[in-house]
């Protein structure tokens, strides 16, 4: 009988250790995958600078991009400024369009009518998030671009920075709204009561108390939206035109880091200057998303200190 009890505890102990170590291993696996992504991207992304002798300055600020597509061919200019500027302008345009509407929506959900917000807007937001980016891109091509072309009299069918900005604005809208609504909701109720007590109207209370108190949360939402806009590839690619030129205005065509990777990766063999350049762009994207994470953490920490 004693034997049986020890066996039982032994097997209990065994399962306990096995369970714990399995879960720990899974946690470590995630770290491993992330490290692998970092290492492989760095390895491939640095080839531009080591194998093809481009300086980092030339890569980041050079305005001509015409890398060699074959092995043994002479290295061409590898300046990626067009794509970086393209990414920045489209994403910032998207933010400019999206933020006011998103914050307004967040205010509506939290302050004006939580009932309607929960019943209609919240589900709508979830569906907006769920719509695949290619579908956004497809609607962009088939509705938005022809519309822009007819309104602005554009010769090339409406593909432009503006079209990219609008499509991205719709895509990041739910992100900003959700995070901003959480931030506004978390402002202590006493603030609101104090503000009403001083005779403020609802709008005054919102603009002078709730929004300022929630500003770091709203900022986090904006950065998350920016990071999503920066990383979106296919939807933008479908409506931006893909020209290798700096955007001259809202209606001109350009390329971004992600669109160039998406459309260019298959065009040349791996290891040519062309593909190595694209890997470097992917590395740039990785670094940028890391910067966004760091920014969000800094904002979060600051908020805790306040």
């Amino acid at each position: 009988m004693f034997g049986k009890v020890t066996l039982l505890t032994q097997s209990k102990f065994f399962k306990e250790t096995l369970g714990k170590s399995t879960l720990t291993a899974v946690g470590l696996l995630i770290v491993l995958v992330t490290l692998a992504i970092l290492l492989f991207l760095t390895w491939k992304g640095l080839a531009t600078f080591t194998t093809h002798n481009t300086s980092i300055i030339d890569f980041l600020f050079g305005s001509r991009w015409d890398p060699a597509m074959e092995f043994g061919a002479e290295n061409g200019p590898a300046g990626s400024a067009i794509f970086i500027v393209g990414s920045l302008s489209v994403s910032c345009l998207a933010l400019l369009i999206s933020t006011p509407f998103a914050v307004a929506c967040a205010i509506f959900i939290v302050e004006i009518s939580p009932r309607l917000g929960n019943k209609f807007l919240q589900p709508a937001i979830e569906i907006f998030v769920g719509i695949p980016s290619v579908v956004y891109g497809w609607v962009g091509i088939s509705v938005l671009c022809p519309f822009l072309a007819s309104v602005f009299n554009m010769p090339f069918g409406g593909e432009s920075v503006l079209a990219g900005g609008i499509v991205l604005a719709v895509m990041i809208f739910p992100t900003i709204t959700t995070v901003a609504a959480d931030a506004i909701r978390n402002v202590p109720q006493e603030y609101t009561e104090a503000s009403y007590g001083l005779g403020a109207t609802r709008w005054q209370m919102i603009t002078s108390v709730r929004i300022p108190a929630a500003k770091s949360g709203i900022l986090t939402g904006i950065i998350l939206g920016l990071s999503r806009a920066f990383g979106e590839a296919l939807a933008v690619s479908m409506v931006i035109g893909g020209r290798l030129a700096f955007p001259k205005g809202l209606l001109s065509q350009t390329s971004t880091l992600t669109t160039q990777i998406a459309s260019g990766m298959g065009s040349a063999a791996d290891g040519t200057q062309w593909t190595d350049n694209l890997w470097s762009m992917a590395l740039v994207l990785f670094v940028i998303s890391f910067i966004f994470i760091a920014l969000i953490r800094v904002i979060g920490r600051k908020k805790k200190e306040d």
Partner: protein
Amino acid sequence: MRTAQFDQSIVQKNNKRRRSQDKTATIALYAVAGLFLLLLAAITLYVIGRGVISFTPKYLSFQKDGLGVELFNTVYMVFLSLVISVPLGVGAGLYMAEYAKSGRLTNIIRTSIETLSSLPSIVLGLFGFLVFVLLEKATWNMFAGILTLSIISIPLLTRVTEDAVREIPNTYREGSYGIGATKWQTITKILLPASMNRITTGVVLAAGRSFGEAAALIYTSGLTSDVDFTNWNPLSHTSPLNIFRTADTLAVRIWYLKTSSILPDKYELADMAAAVLIILVFVFNLTARYLRRRSSLK
């Protein structure tokens, strides 16, 4: 007494201005909210409507000009990727909720999860292309796509699981320890079942995201399919079950039709594919919503 000298009319005027401002703002906010709903309705109705208009039975066929192959590939790949990502994601979530102590290791894991979930999917796709295709000296294959989809879903599942398990009241754990259960028994017999509904919701959402994913797949599982639906030997190259063949999904199909297809009816095909995807989004959303409601009733 300065207040006594206050001109009452100014105060009244000011009050009036404030009230009308408040009213205007409220109306404007209602308008924005309405606009938002209108936009969603417009997009979904447009996409579904176009799909209905361009519908002909041949688009649902499993031939070259149909979408049956893509639909099969999408479901098959998402299912297999969940087989990989659910145990890993849920496991990591359980670890973070129950075992992780605050310290450097936990911090590193958390940063990794955050990084993974914020990386653009095209970058993850490139990683998958490099590690699962180029380094294996392989061509585009479904397995590479499946693994890449798993990497995308894992952080989402981890977060959902961790949140769900953390929110279980401590009385559950105390009760379980009180009757002599070990920590592992508590996790498997009490905590996991108690958070099952929310985890399932997370799985449904992850599946929904994978269904629409394209950027991560164009260089991993590829842009075309060559399948023979009479051949069910999983080792054969044209068998639908073979996971080492190239395989395009519905979302990838839309991208391919826009960029490089020479099919004469590519617009109709893309319309159909978009409509199917939107309908899937609704199905997944309603399922998740239903599960959530059921879990909150409990």
